[in-house]
């Protein structure tokens, strides 16, 4: 059994059968009173973030979670199929479970799959992915410095705001944590 002294960023605990990951935490103790650990925790099934205050020393149940690196294979109905490259075991996650991350999956992309009690519940894509632009308004020659942006549609269905000089057929580096354009990739 764990307790509040085990709490740190990323600590995973089970509450009412649901796994939560600690996003932020703070020890609070009035000079003459009960100590608490205030936490911000993320529901690993839904992504919802909530605040929860624990009494210092309170017992916590560790969540049985495991992260495994897998390769994205292909879509199948409204799900996506991944494979463990060592065991060749295949698992699938629904598009709903993948959320925004569905837009960062290209054939062969290596991702970290979060397993809860052996079942996949989520995915962490690489921090940066390179995506091909399939549609955007034509660029303006020479305009490389403007702060103005325009929308561009990528091969995975992701829509990003890009500088005006980006054209269809360009490859973009995208930050998967924010969904933001980083730079145009040469070649």
């Amino acid at each position, binding site marked *: 059994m764990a307790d509040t002294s085990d709490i740190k960023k990323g600590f995973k605990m089970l509450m009412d059968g649901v796994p939560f990951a600690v996003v932020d935490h703070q*020890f609070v*103790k*009035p*000079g*003459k*009173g009960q100590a*608490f650990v205030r936490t911000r925790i993320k529901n690993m099934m839904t992504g919802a973030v909530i605040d929860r*205050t624990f009494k210092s020393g309170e017992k916590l149940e560790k969540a049985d979670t495991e992260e495994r690196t897998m390769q994205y294979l292909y879509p199948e109905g409204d799900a996506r199929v991944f494979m463990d490259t060592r065991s060749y075991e295949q698992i699938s996650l629904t598009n709903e479970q993948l959320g925004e991350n569905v837009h960062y999956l290209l054939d062969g992309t290596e991702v970290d799959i979060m397993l809860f009690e052996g079942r996949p519940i989520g995915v962490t894509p690489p921090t940066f992915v390179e995506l091909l632009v399939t549609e955007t308004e034509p660029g303006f020659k020479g305009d490389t410095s403007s702060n103005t942006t325009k929308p561009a549609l990528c091969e995975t269905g992701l829509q990003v705001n890009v500088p005006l000089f980006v054209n269809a057929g360009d490859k973009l580096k995208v930050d998967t944590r924010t969904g933001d354009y980083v730079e145009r990739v040469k070649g």
Partner: protein
Amino acid sequence: MAAPADLGVLQVMALRAMLLASIRRFFEERGFVEVETPAIVPSPGLDVHLAAFEVRAWRGEAVGWLATSPEYQMKRLLSAGAERIFQLCRSYRAEEQGRHHEREFTMLEWYRANASSDDLIRDTEELVAFVANALDQPAPEVQPPWQRLTVDEALQFHANVDLDALVNDEEQFFRVWAEEVQPRLGNERPVVVTDWPSSMASLAKLKPNGMADRFEAFFRGVELCNGFGELTDAAEQRRRFEQDQAERRAAGAPVYPIDKRFLDDLERGMPESGGNALGVDRLLMLLLGADSIQDVMLFPEERL
């Protein structure tokens, strides 16, 4: 106020030296005498939620505990006739670690004989403004006088609940305090919270209205100090100590001994006095706008 940026170790060293020097100057200008009391004490403080480090000699024989505050010995000096004393010392709390807590931290404690908690609140306001100036952080928001709130008002204002509804459930009181009240206290300017429930009087006397003569100042949601109109009634003090011990026993916490010499001296007589304990690391953190006390310490545990 200046942004903390990333303070380098030499900057922290210089700022701490200026801070300590300015605190000493403040008290010397007001006729206070600097005192030193031991770090290893026969009783480390009996408050139910305090955890102390036990000190053992090399063959394992118990020597005492590291003081959680220098309160008992400083009050014994008041009983001996001292009128204005202050101390800058390390205090130790075994189970407190976080952005605003360090198990070994620097405490400023001062006492005035023949004075009230109001006098101590005034000292606190003037001290913080003085130190801010000395550090070249002349913060208009810390200039006296500070806003005052009773505990009841603070609860009503920030948590929409009356003290009456919480006073019999201390855990719930502190949960509401930690979640809803304290984070909102003193966001613009420091605020002094007075009139604590008598069950949380600790070493404070009771006021005519039945509340504890205890105050705490908060700035940007951080508790900066805790002061008392001091309890001078030895019999009442013994009763509270025995009650603390019973509560510790019931909670399965180590039951520390009562400091008999402190009670003896109290019995012989201590003038009506006010005292205050202020977290020096927190003060520096707040004046510099830093995020944690570790940012303004030379060797917090994480870098030791």
